[in-house]
């Protein structure tokens, strides 16, 4: 799929290079695992292009996605997490060029560790995609497509500096010929810690230093064959201070490493047949050290190491001469292992093999095109057995309107932590234990959407969904052994639903750009008869930008979230009480309505030098307890780019 990605990337770059009124469409790969024009993809795909990434000024995936309609980015103690369609963080599958991302902690992949340097575009599919990608894709998929080499030479430098001594510096080089293309990307990112509560010694976030490197080579010896190789490495060091309710204070340090390599290729075996093969490996290690002040009793060093090997072979075969009917058949193999001090056995491994099949059939109905796409995947996992995940997707494109309907199933395999964890909280003494008898979580989903795009400058879309989830894995209190206060164990205990809709509108009358999004999320824990914790019920997002004379442009992004509900036992009656977050003073009307965030940015687009400055979180919202977010951040910087054909 990686190489299919490349083909699509080339087309995407063409589309970026043309005037945006042109009819050339962005090509996406996530919806069907094969390149498809965005408008013809069997399920709705949202694309954030390189141009849009640069316009936002985002330096990390978390910063970029927090302004996207229908996504909820949340600051948690284990990093910045994502929710899609009201599902949990672990229900969003995150892929980099088709490779699964490692390093989930408490279900969260920390989005702040993905720098924007090497990202060409991001594809987002909301709703389950387990019929194509298997486990985890219950709420949706975020697919990061990295940059690729190009012909000629292209050199870019980017430097940004701001408050908190935040520094981002990146350099990228693309060079190549018609047959061999290279790219190299280097990045450095660092920041001081920040603290929303100066009454204690603890910091709200950690200071960090991050270096990253990526290299890619694309070889096209013949128009029918392409080979692709990528390797990347990221190291992130964090330092912060934490304090427990018991008065213990810790100096915390950690080193996170994330690397991946992939080798793949495609071969067009005939006018109707294409074979795609890819093998890849990923490595993730987190070394975490906690050094107690005033004592050595609770000092810990914990090392978690994850490794993943994946392989894919996929055959696409046209069943009609014009290519409007394509069947795909493929096999995915996966081997994953982990060593961790927190796991009872100290390590775990799993193997999984999956067969998937999909048919994409485009039927011309007068001036309209109906796309029918049934798909089916069968996963066989060494831990939980088999999981079949069928999906049927229909798309009807008629003039400026596109209607889509899909029904599918999703699943999430219990992870190693849920299976094998043995963790005793050193500060206060409760125990959390895994459960080897867990079953996979399962969901049923219905999605419907309408898109209206009369021109590239006007667009309107509406997407509604419903997910019914069974066997959700959660903690349950079980009998406490001698020597502990409480024992929590993972169990398949919860049933829930999430439902809602997203509306997005885009209007670009020159020289303005106006975008508006609204997302409604309604959830229910069917057993406790209460909304699921942490979901933002209503969220409105917007972009207002203007191109001014003398190559200056100004862009503002804002987001408004109503308060979300968390649960904790506040009165000691062993029943969780609802807490509205962020917490408000009794007479704080604005706060009780919700939270408004605003980012503003101005750019002077010279050639080859571009200068920019901006303010993130203008209103400085964020609370130490339960709703932390980066305080107001002021920055400036420049981009330099040189090209030689």
């Amino acid at each position: 799929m990686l190489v299919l990605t490349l083909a699509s990337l080339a087309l995407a770059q063409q589309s970026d290079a043309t005037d945006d009124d042109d009819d050339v469409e962005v090509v996406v790969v996530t919806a069907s695992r094969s390149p498809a024009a965005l408008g013809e993809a069997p399920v709705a795909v949202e694309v954030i292009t390189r141009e849009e990434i640069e316009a936002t000024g985002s330096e990390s995936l978390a910063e970029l996605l927090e302004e996207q309609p229908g996504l909820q980015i949340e600051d948690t103690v284990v990093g910045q997490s994502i929710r899609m369609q009201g599902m949990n963080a672990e229900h969003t599958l995150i892929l980099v060029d088709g490779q699964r991302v490692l390093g989930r902690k408490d279900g969260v992949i920390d989005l702040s560790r993905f720098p924007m340097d090497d990202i060409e575009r991001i594809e987002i599919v909301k709703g389950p995609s387990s019929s194509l990608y298997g486990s985890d894709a219950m709420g949706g998929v975020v697919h990061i497509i990295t940059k690729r080499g190009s012909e000629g030479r292209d050199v870019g430098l980017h430097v940004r500096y701001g408050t908190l001594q935040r520094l981002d510096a990146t350099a990228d080089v693309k060079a190549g010929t018609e047959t061999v293309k290279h790219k190299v990307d280097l990045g450095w990112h660092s920041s001081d810690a920040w603290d929303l509560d100066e009454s204690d010694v603890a910091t709200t976030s950690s200071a960090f230093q991050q270096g990253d490197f990526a290299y890619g080579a694309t070889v096209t010896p013949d128009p029918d064959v392409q080979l692709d190789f990528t390797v990347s490495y990221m190291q992130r060091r964090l330092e912060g201070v934490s304090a427990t309710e018991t008065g213990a204070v810790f100096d915390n340090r950690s080193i996170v490493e994330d690397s991946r390599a992939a080798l793949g290729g495609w071969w067009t075996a005939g006018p109707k047949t294409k074979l795609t093969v890819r093998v890849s490996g990923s490595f993730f290690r987190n070394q975490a050290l906690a050094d107690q002040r005033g004592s050595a009793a609770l000092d810990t060093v914990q090392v978690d190491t994850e490794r993943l090997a994946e392989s894919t072979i996929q055959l696409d075969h046209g069943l009609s001469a014009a290519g409007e009917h394509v069947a795909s058949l493929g096999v995915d193999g996966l081997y994953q292992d982990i060593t961790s001090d927190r796991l009872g056995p100290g390590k775990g491994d799993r193997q999984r093999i999956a067969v998937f099949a999909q048919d994409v059939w485009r039927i011309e109905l007068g001036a309209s095109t109906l796309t029918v796409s049934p798909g089916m995947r069968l996963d066989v996992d060494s831990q939980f057995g088999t999981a079949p995940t069928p999906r049927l997707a229909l798309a009807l494109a008629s003039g400026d309107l596109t209607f889509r309907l899909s029904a599918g199933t999703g699943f999430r395999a219990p992870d190693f932590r849920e299976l094998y964890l043995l963790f005793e909280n050193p500060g206060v003494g409760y125990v959390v234990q895994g459960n080897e008898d867990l079953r996979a979580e399962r969901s049923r989903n219905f999605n419907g959407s309408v898109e209206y795009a009369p021109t590239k400058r006007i667009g309107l879309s509406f997407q509604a969904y419903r997910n019914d989830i069974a066997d959700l894995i959660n903690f349950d209190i079980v009998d406490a052994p001698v020597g502990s206060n409480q024992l929590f164990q993972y169990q398949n205990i919860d049933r829930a639903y999430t439902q809602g809709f997203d509306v997005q509108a885009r209007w670009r009358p020159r020289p303005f750009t106006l975008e508006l999004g609204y997302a409604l999320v309604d959830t229910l824990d069917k057993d406790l008869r209460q909304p699921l914790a942490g979901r933002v019920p209503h969220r409105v997002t917007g972009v207002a930008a203007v191109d001014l004379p003398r190559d200056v442009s100004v862009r503002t992004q804002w987001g408004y979230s109503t308060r979300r509900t968390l649960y904790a036992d506040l009165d000691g009656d062993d029943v969780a009480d609802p807490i509205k977050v962020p917490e408000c003073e009794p007479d704080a009307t604005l706060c009780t309505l919700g939270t408004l965030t605003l980012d503003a940015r101005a750019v002077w687009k010279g050639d080859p030098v571009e200068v920019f400055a901006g303010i993130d979180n203008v209103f400085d919202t964020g609370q130490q307890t339960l709703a932390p977010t980066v305080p107001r951040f002021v920055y400036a910087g420049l981009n330099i780019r040189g090209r030689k054909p």
Partner: protein
Amino acid sequence: MKLVPIVALLAGCAPDIASIHTWNNGDSREPAVIDTSDTGLFVVETRVTTTPGPDGVMHTVVDAQDALRWVGVDFDAGAAVGQLDSEPGWDLKLMRSDIALNGGVSGTGGAEALFLEGQALEAVTTAPTEGYTVDQPDDDDDNDKPELVFEVWFDYDGATHILSPHPGTFVLRSTEGRHYAIAVRSFYDTAGTSAVLSLDWKELL
């Protein structure tokens, strides 16, 4: 040869984090420290220290962090480390938040105790003559622990997981038949470490 750096990247090339860190209170992983569990938690050797306080009240700190090993306390010997393998050599034994008595299901030393709820240590000057019980077998409650006379010593905050002493004073009839008034003061030491219990106690004559 090109594969060598790639393999290095995939295996990780960061240094061992402990090798680049200077510990606040020495390296906790020196030989004197015992790693007792699978949790990566390094626990210093268990110990009991007793110091005299004002008004004849003694102050004893019991390091009961080890979740796999009881620490005995012998009040008849001035609240020294109790010898758990010796029948009369201990009166109470502690492990994390559990406090067991050398009597009933927990021991054969014949110790007994009772709890005077709400009574301050200072107010207890004579030993009650009756009401003493011993540790009982597990009943039908929601844990699989024996029913310990001392299990009422704390209140548990489910939101913060903090243990705080329940107001009151225990009276212990020791293995040698002496009486001691004991009040648990804290489950945490000054550095915030849990399961380092502070006890104030005095002998009732």
